[in-house]
């Protein structure tokens, strides 16, 4: 069970730091720094720079993203911003605009 769930009715503006899994179904603006996994559900809006272990995007993310492990952009997901991650997957049906840095 995820440690932190930001439900669809909730808007957080500011800085979120966490060392456990974070699931976003609502709206986050500002900054999101998580040691564990971040899941941006379909319908969620994240307008923030995101740093995470793993990031899975089913909703809309605007901001630069860095993940120590991986970033998964799921079908229906939308990501606008630069991505820095060891691994990146972009599913069919996802939209993405930005640069990718995979530490080659």
């Amino acid at each position: 069970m995820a440690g932190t769930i930001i439900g669809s009715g909730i808007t957080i503006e500011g800085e979120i730091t966490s060392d456990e899994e974070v699931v976003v179904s609502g709206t986050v603006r500002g900054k999101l720094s998580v040691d564990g996994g971040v899941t941006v559900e379909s319908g969620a809006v994240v307008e923030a720079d995101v740093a995470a272990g793993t990031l899975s995007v089913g909703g809309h993310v605007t901001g630069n993203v860095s993940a120590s492990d991986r970033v998964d952009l799921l079908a229906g997901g939308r990501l606008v911003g630069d991505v820095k991650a060891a691994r990146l997957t972009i599913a069919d049906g996802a939209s993405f605009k930005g640069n990718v840095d995979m530490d080659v």
Partner: protein
Amino acid sequence: MTTPSTIGRGTTIRGSIRGDGDLELHGYVEGTVTLGGDLQISETALVKSDVSAKRVFVRGAVAGNISATEIIILEPGARVVGDVGAPQIGIRPGALVRGNVATGAPLPPRPVHVAAPAAAQAQRGRPAVAAPAARTSAPAARAPVHVTPGRPVHAAPSRPVAPPPVARPVIARPPPAPHPVAPPPPEPEPEPEPEAELEAEAEPMMEEEPAATEEALEAGASEDSSSPPPPVVPAVPKGAKAQVRRGRGGK
């Protein structure tokens, strides 16, 4: 419609949380929390912010005002430093509160709070001379403040705005302190004021006591020490009072 929201123990949020859903807090929040639904603040939570929601259940620590449109329940283990306002309030045995508690209406919006310290500050700088004259009118000046039902909580902090209270703290403040909220041993205080007023007074006491004390000391050092009156002020030579009054009248 809205999924249940949780802020986990390992999570820190600095900023505002808004929404119309329910929220469970287990982590650290600094900022403001405004919800249309229920808010649960668990044992592990530390909230340093003003909080408002439809219903609020507190088991953890809150440093800030709590306001609800329906009900606030402080469960055992709750530690609240701040004002609490809602139509219904429950404080269970084992909950700690330090602040003004008011049933009837949610707390008024913030701004009042902000203005108060500034006013108090200005007040501090004011010459003590103004005090005695004003003191006589003090009760009158205070009355309107407490009458306003909409703002029971912040009425008190704003009180220093009126000149009278400057000297008053020395006289009036110490007694009410022990009363409703403050921890120190209660002393029966025959003040004929309504309970609501005592409550209102209790809060500023805690927040401003140091200032008041300073003021008292200052006053004690200066010529004014003699003028302020009776009950609490330490030994004042009998003639001094009249003397000072005369001196002031001359000015």
